[in-house]
Every structure is written in C-alpha cells, then in structure tokens.
C-alpha cells in the first residue's frame, strides 16, 4: 500500500487503539470500584453517575470536535456558567418563558462560538489565548449581569430535563445520547466532519485540496459553544440554580476527558466514543472518592492526580509528528 493510500485509510477509519484502550481502562476501573465500595453497583448510584456524567459528556463532545481540528476551547466552562445564570433569570419561574429563555442562551452561545471562530480562523489568533480572553469576558459579563448573587428562576418543568425519568433512566442521559448521535453523524457522515479530521491532520494540505478550512474551523468553535450551552442547560436543571461559577472546572475536565479518550492534542486522531469513555472514567473516579468518604480536600487532590495521570498515560501524539 502506498503512503498516500495509507494516509487516506487512516483518515477514513481512525485506528481503534485510543478509544478501545480507554474503554478497557473504564471496565477495569468499574471492577476495582465495585470491589472497593459495595454501594458502587447500587442502581441509584449508577443512575447518579449517569446524571453527573451527562453535562460533562455533552461539553466534552463539543470539545473533542475542536481538538480534532487542532484547536482548543477553554471558554466552555464560562459559557456553561453564563447559560445557567441567563436561563434561570430570564425564565423567572414562568413556564411560558422556558422556550424563549432556552432560545436566548442558544443564540448567545452561537454568537460566542462564532466570535471565537472568527478570530481564530480568520484573524489567525492563538486558539488558547483567544478562548481564554472569551472566558474572561464572559465570566465578567455573567458577574455584572447577576451582580454576583445566584439566581433562582428555573421552573419545575424545565428541571425535568435532568430530574425527570423515562423508563427509569434520567432524562439527561437521553439528551447526552442525542448529543452523541449528533456529534457522531457530523463527524462520520458529513464532508464537514471529514474536513475536521483533515484539518487536524494537515491544515495546509486540506486547504490546498480545496476545502474551506477557515469556515470549517470557525464552525467547529460554533459547535463547541452550542454543545456547551446544552451542557449548561443540563447542569442548571441538575443543580436547580444559576451561579456564575457553576461551570468552572468543566473546561479542564472536558479537555481531560477528550485526551484520556484517545483524542490527540493537536488534532487529526481520535473518536468520540473514546471521549465518552474518558468522561465515564473521570465521573466514576470522582464518584468513588465520594463513596469512600474521603475529606473534601483530599478529593480535590485525587481529582487533580487522576487528571494528570490519566492524560499523561493516555495522551497520543498528533497525526503530524511536529
């Protein structure tokens, strides 16, 4: 097989090793967890893990898309926080305002994502710094908007998207599954998705092959922002309030989940099923330290150690060596 054919095959069908290794690690972890804590396999605990994993899974899927095209989005945590405060303030306990409030945050998220994409793809700014600036701007805006106090205006109907159950399974899991199906379709069944992989593999070659790299890159940030908004909605429904710090930490955890799931930092390689495994690994570990009753300070230490060790062990080099 010629080198060119080999490369083409790799783009068409990324190797399974990254994602498969992560699922294997998750399985091992689950076995260890069920030995360490008898409550782990309890049905209620498993549903709880699902409920906790749903927002992280949704935001991590968007993050994976951005990382696959060679970028990074550290503004997703701030977008989630903004979503929780705006949606709960605008809803103001009025059931008729649910849909307008949700549409408003989706529009806000789209605007933020397009702004990120414009600067990164068209002006050529550094993705990390650009989304960092967006993070600072958004969290300042959220503070000014709420004057720093938490907001309570979510209707009970809205909270059903996380608290409600369908066939005994929390509704938020269905939302996460829907987000997964959408991301899978976009990445695997559209030209746009193939272009994401191609840009992450070699931006210049993709450009010279006639793809509109700037547009694809910009829309990747749009997608990431919109996924973050949906994650923010699920988070707001779960915690029942809007807070300016609700989403902090999700930027780190979403990136960690994608990398632990075998997506290469720098782009071009990875699959979203791996990201789901990465999310579950993180949430199961956080759940485990909770079940073991460790003090909260120690929990924070374990969280940090898990992320460093997980990313260090599972990180893969990007498709283009350099």
């Amino acid at each position, binding site marked *: 097989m010629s080198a060119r054919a080999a490369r083409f095959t790799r783009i068409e069908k990324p190797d399974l090793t990254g994602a498969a290794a992560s699922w294997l690690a998750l399985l091992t972890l689950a076995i260890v967890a069920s030995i360490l804590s008898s409550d782990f396999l309890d049905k209620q605990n498993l549903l709880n893990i699902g409920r906790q994993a749903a927002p992280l899974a949704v935001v991590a899927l968007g993050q994976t898309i951005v990382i696959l095209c060679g970028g990074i989005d550290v503004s997703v945590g701030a977008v989630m926080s903004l979503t929780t405060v705006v949606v709960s303030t605008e809803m103001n306990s009025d059931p008729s305002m649910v849909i307008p409030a949700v549409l408003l945050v989706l529009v806000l998220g789209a605007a933020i994502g397009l702004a990120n994409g414009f600067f990164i793809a068209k002006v050529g700014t*550094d993705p*990390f710094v650009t989304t960092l600036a967006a993070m600072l701007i958004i969290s*300042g805006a959220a503070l000014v908007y709420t004057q720093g106090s938490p907001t309570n205006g979510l209707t009970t109907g809205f909270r059903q998207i996380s608290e409600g159950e369908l066939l005994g399974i929390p509704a938020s899991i269905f939302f996460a599954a829907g987000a997964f199906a959408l991301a899978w379709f976009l990445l695997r069944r559209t030209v746009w998705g193939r272009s994401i992989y191609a840009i992450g593999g070699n931006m210049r070659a993709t450009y010279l092959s006639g793809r509109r790299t700037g547009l694809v890159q910009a829309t990747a940030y749009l997608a990431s922002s919109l996924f973050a908004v949906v994650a923010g909605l699920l988070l707001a429904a779960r915690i029942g309030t809007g807070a300016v710090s609700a989403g902090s930490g999700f930027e780190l955890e979403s990136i960690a989940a994608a990398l632990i799931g075998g997506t290469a930092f720098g782009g071009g390689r990875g699959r979203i099923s791996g990201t789901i495994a990465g999310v579950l690994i993180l949430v199961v570990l956080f759940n485990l330290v909770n079940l073991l009753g460790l003090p909260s300070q120690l929990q924070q230490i374990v969280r940090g150690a898990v992320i460093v060790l997980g990313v260090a062990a599972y990180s893969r080099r990007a498709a283009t060596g350099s």
Partner: protein
Amino acid sequence: MSAERTLTRRVRSVGGRVRAHRAANRWIGPLWVWGVLIALYILAVYTVPEFATFDNFKNILKQAVPLAIVSIGQTAVIIQGGIDLSVAAVMSMGDTLTMGIMNGGSGSILFAIVAPLGIGVLIGAANGLVVSKTAAPAFIVTLGAASIVQGAVFWYTHSAPYGAPSLSFGQLGFKEYGPLPALVVLFIPILVVSLLVQNRTRAGRHAYAVGDDDQVAARSGVNVTRVKVATFALSGFFAALAGIAVATRTGSGEPLAGTGFDWDSIAAVVIGGAILVGGRGSIGGTMAGVLIIALIENAMTLKDVSPFWQSTVKGVIVLIAVVIAAMTAKDTLRRLLQWRPMDAFRPRRAGPPPAAPGRGGAPA
C-alpha cells in the same frame, strides 16, 4: 557582479535592522506595548481623579510586584513553548506555608522563606518532567497540579486563614527604602538578574531555541528535557516567591491568596508580545503587560467601577493583544525581518514549497 554587490548591501542593511530590532526586543520587549502603557497612563491622569499623585504611583508599583514576580517565571515557560497554570495554587502554598512556619514569630524567618521556595521548585520540576516525558499538554498537567496543590493547601490550613507573620516580616510590605516601597526595591535585583539570564546566558538562548522548534533544538545539541524542567522549576520558584511577597502585606496566610494570578500572568505575558507556541516573548515586554494590568485595576478602583467589570476588561485587553500579535505575524515588516537572504545561495531542491502558512490553528 553588480547584482551580487546589491545583494550584499541588502543583506547588510537587513542584518543591521534585524540586530537593532532584536536588541530592543530582547531587553524591553515590543515598543508598542510601552507606548500603550504610556498612553493609558496619560489618559488616566486626565480622566481619573486622584490618579496623578506620587503616592498613587508608588501604590501601582507596589500592587504590581507579586504579579511581576509570577510573570517572570511564566514568561520563561511560555518562551520555551509551555504554559504554567499551577502558579496560582503554588502562590497560595507560598503564602500559607510562610505564615504557618513563622507562626507569629515563633518560627525561623529564613526557614519560612526557604521551605516554600524549595517546594515551589519541586512542584515546577515535577510539572516539567511530566510535560517533557509524555504527550500530555502542559496546560492540562499544570491545571491538574494546581488542583493537587490547592487541595493540599486547603488540607494544611483547614480551609481557613492560617498562621501569622513575624513582626519584622509583616512590616516589610509597608516599609519604604528611600522614595520607593521596600517590595519594589527588593524586586529590582530579581528583575535585573532575570533579564541577564534571558539575554546573556546560554540557558536563556536555549529556552528560545526549544520554544521555536524543540526537534531542531534537540538535534543542535540542546538538552530539551533539561530546558523544559528548568523553566517549569523556575516558574514554581517565582510563584512561591510571589506568594511570600503577598504575605508581607497581610496578617495571616490566605488559602486562596493566588486566585486569578494564573490567568493574569498569562495575560501579562501575552500582552508583552509572547506567543503560546513558544520562541517569542521577553521579560521586558511582560513587565509592560504587568504594569498595564496594574494600572487598569488601579484606575478602575479609583473610578469606582464595579469590580465585576475587571474580568471583562482584562479579557478585552488580552483579545486586543492576541489580535495584534496575529496581525504583526502576518505583516510585511516582520516578513522582511525574517527573510533569510543566504537562502538565495542554497541549491534549489524539488519538493513542497518551504513557506508554510504559519502555525495558525495549531495550539500551544
């Protein structure tokens, strides 16, 4: 032959401009950043009441010292192509550990300063080792380290203000040597040594080489791992030192003393002309970035602007800085300065065109 002479002349003149440009850049950073600082200062003098006093000037400098110290280490890491998001937690460690060891005067001041610095170096070196030995990106490793260190600080302090300064140490933050605050005077030698290390030592040059292209640096005989570990260790050292500097102004160790310094130090470095892929940036430029941030915070406080706006304003400044960096990377002057005239003498080889469209899109 006349064509050759013209070329030689052009090589010389471009070479001269490159040297002048680089010399200025090395020591004080991009001139436009200092221009922005001066413009902001003049603007504040005319629009902010009580801004234009010598006391306030000293105040800005004094407030800027901790951020300036952290940002020196952050500059070293970013020049080398990494990033250090653990500095905020390491600062909190420096602050609380110093206070805890001094414990109101019962402990040794020397040990209270040396111990946090040593731990800072160890944390930084650990970061550097993980970053250089695995494929894990620096910001994830250091953010994870931040979580670990911050958890340890909460454990040590039981999540409450902790310890107290010795009398002489506690006065340092309010003392003045001559016309300037003691902290500012003590900072000057640190800055001078850092500038000399950046510009006049092999280690400083190596950091730029690794940041520009670590594979080329490795093939040129640079020990890349050592450079990376050293810069991260330096960043841990300076972050702990900044925590100690904060401690000279407060009555007890604050477990969240460093909050916000991670993003602020990166903002200062980026405003100062560095790029996150590495190879560019300078301590001088970073100092201008630090002063811009300190000046804006000071002016906003004097103007009674809600502190909630501060984050947004900083974000806008960072965005402007990164846009300007992207534009200057494209502009003709820089292309001229990066033009390597000697390439004309190399034999042409078949293959892809050497000019890549920059590294746009590739993250740090």
